[in-house]
């Protein structure tokens, strides 16, 4: 799934994605630690209805319940400090040529300069995976690098 990340100067970062049912959904991670969950309206695609606002603790609890670790959000803090550094989650498609192959074979670091800093598989997170770590289709790869680097990784992994 593709998640778009948009910087909101002075406010935080907004993540946006499309659900399979066709709703466009956004999460605003605010500097003050709160999260807004919004859904874009169908009659005005630029306007969004705020579904709920969560404090940092509540967001942590929700993340635990959903089982999806908030890795990218934590990296976002870091990428904001270093201009030019971006992070993204790239999903390894089932049936990709790297499905069942060790991470090292992708050679993404050599080819693009970007690093795969974690692999999220279901409820498990493999932080700082070794080159020998075997990847499986459906894994979410947490990648950090330049925008060009991330595009390169996407081409290698998905293509």
């Amino acid at each position, binding site marked *: 799934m593709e998640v778009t990340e948009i910087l909101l100067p002075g406010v935080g970062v907004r993540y946006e994605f499309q659900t399979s049912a066709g709703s*466009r959904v956004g999460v605003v991670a605010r500097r003050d630690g709160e999260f807004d969950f919004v859904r874009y309206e169908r009659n005005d695609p630029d306007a969004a209805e705020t579904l709920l606002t969560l404090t940092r603790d509540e967001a942590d609890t929700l993340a635990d319940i959903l089982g999806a670790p908030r890795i990218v959000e934590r990296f976002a803090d870091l990428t*904001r400090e270093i201009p030019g550094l971006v992070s993204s989650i790239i999903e390894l498609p089932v049936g990709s040529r790297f499905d069942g192959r060790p991470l090292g074979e992708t050679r993404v670091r050599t080819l693009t300069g970007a690093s795969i800093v974690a692999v999220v598989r279901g409820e498990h997170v493999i932080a700082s995976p070794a080159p020998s770590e075997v990847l499986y289709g459906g894994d979410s790869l947490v990648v950090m690098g330049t925008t060009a680097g991330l595009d390169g990784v996407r081409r290698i992994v998905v293509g």
Partner: protein
Amino acid sequence: MDAFLLELGVILLLLGFLANVAGRLGLSAIPLFLLAGLLLGEGGVHDLGASTEFIEAAGELGVLLLLLMLGLEFSAAEFTASMRRHAPSGVVDLVLNAPVGFVAGLLLGYDWQGSLALAGVTWISSSGIVARLLSDLKRTGFRETPSVLSVLVLEDIAMAVFLPLLVVVLSGGTALTAVLAVGAALGLVLLVLLATRRLGHHLGKVIGHEDDEQVLLRVLGLMLVVAGLTYLVDASAAVGAFLVGLAIPGRTAKRARDVLRPLRDLFAALFFLSFGLQTSPMDLPPVLPAALVLAVVSAVTKVATGVYAAGRDGVGPRGRVRAGAALTARGEFSIVIAELAVVAGYTDIGPLASAYVVMLGVLGPLLSRFADDIAGPWARSVQVPAPSS
């Protein structure tokens, strides 16, 4: 002494009450603070005696704290992102809004120096009011919001160049010294940004501390020393405070923001009050027509700015009008600029700027709230495009 404590106490309670009323109405407290100052000013409902001197001094601190916080909020990543996407929006913002004040100044019979101050008053939107508004109206997720915030970030940095320029010009500097001042200001900002990148962690170590009290005293002390020094070399003390905020690196800046926020709120409130105090209510009626025309015209030009900026992000017609309406609010920086003019002897810019900010400080949030209704006829006549992801 007794009268002083009593007066100050009553004033703070009054400001608290006004902020509460403003919050309930969904408005900014700044216009109400200015109005309170006007009413308590010379010849107003009640002459303040004992506390005037303190409020004036506190107001000076308030300006410095406003600019310090502005610097602390700044992030190089956000600035470069804004520049990359919205540099033309920043130019449109300047070209549409500053001339309104400048031309008005010339028509009102000011020389070009005084008119330049008025140009600043109509140019800079209130990042405080607008950011608060977007959050209150739950619009942080809206697609036009990044363009609005980018324009604000660019204005904030432009202030660092405009303020020194204005100070030099108002104190009777020649064109050459003005150019030098702008060059020096730009150079200084760049120098501080570069130094922060290389040496920021050292400053972070010196200023950062476990103890909130230490962070408070060190940041505040550093700000006052630098502001005092920039004042001594005839530059704007406010710019010195801004540069200090700029130089404090990320993590420490966040700590400093948290620690200083209540202090900024207190002293900024007293600044708006003291600015109003300088004006007698009698001075107000003659400037009202001019302020009204200025408010209406510069509201229209700001809406146009927002329409252009949001258009660059591919936002639809309704969102573009919302962006424009959000930007119309003027507030703290218009007053900071007007204060410089008043200090330089252009005393009648004081009541004009007060009336202007009271109007747009109230009108901006209202326009923003009802932007969809205002945009109605135009938006219906234009096909809403599919969202570009």
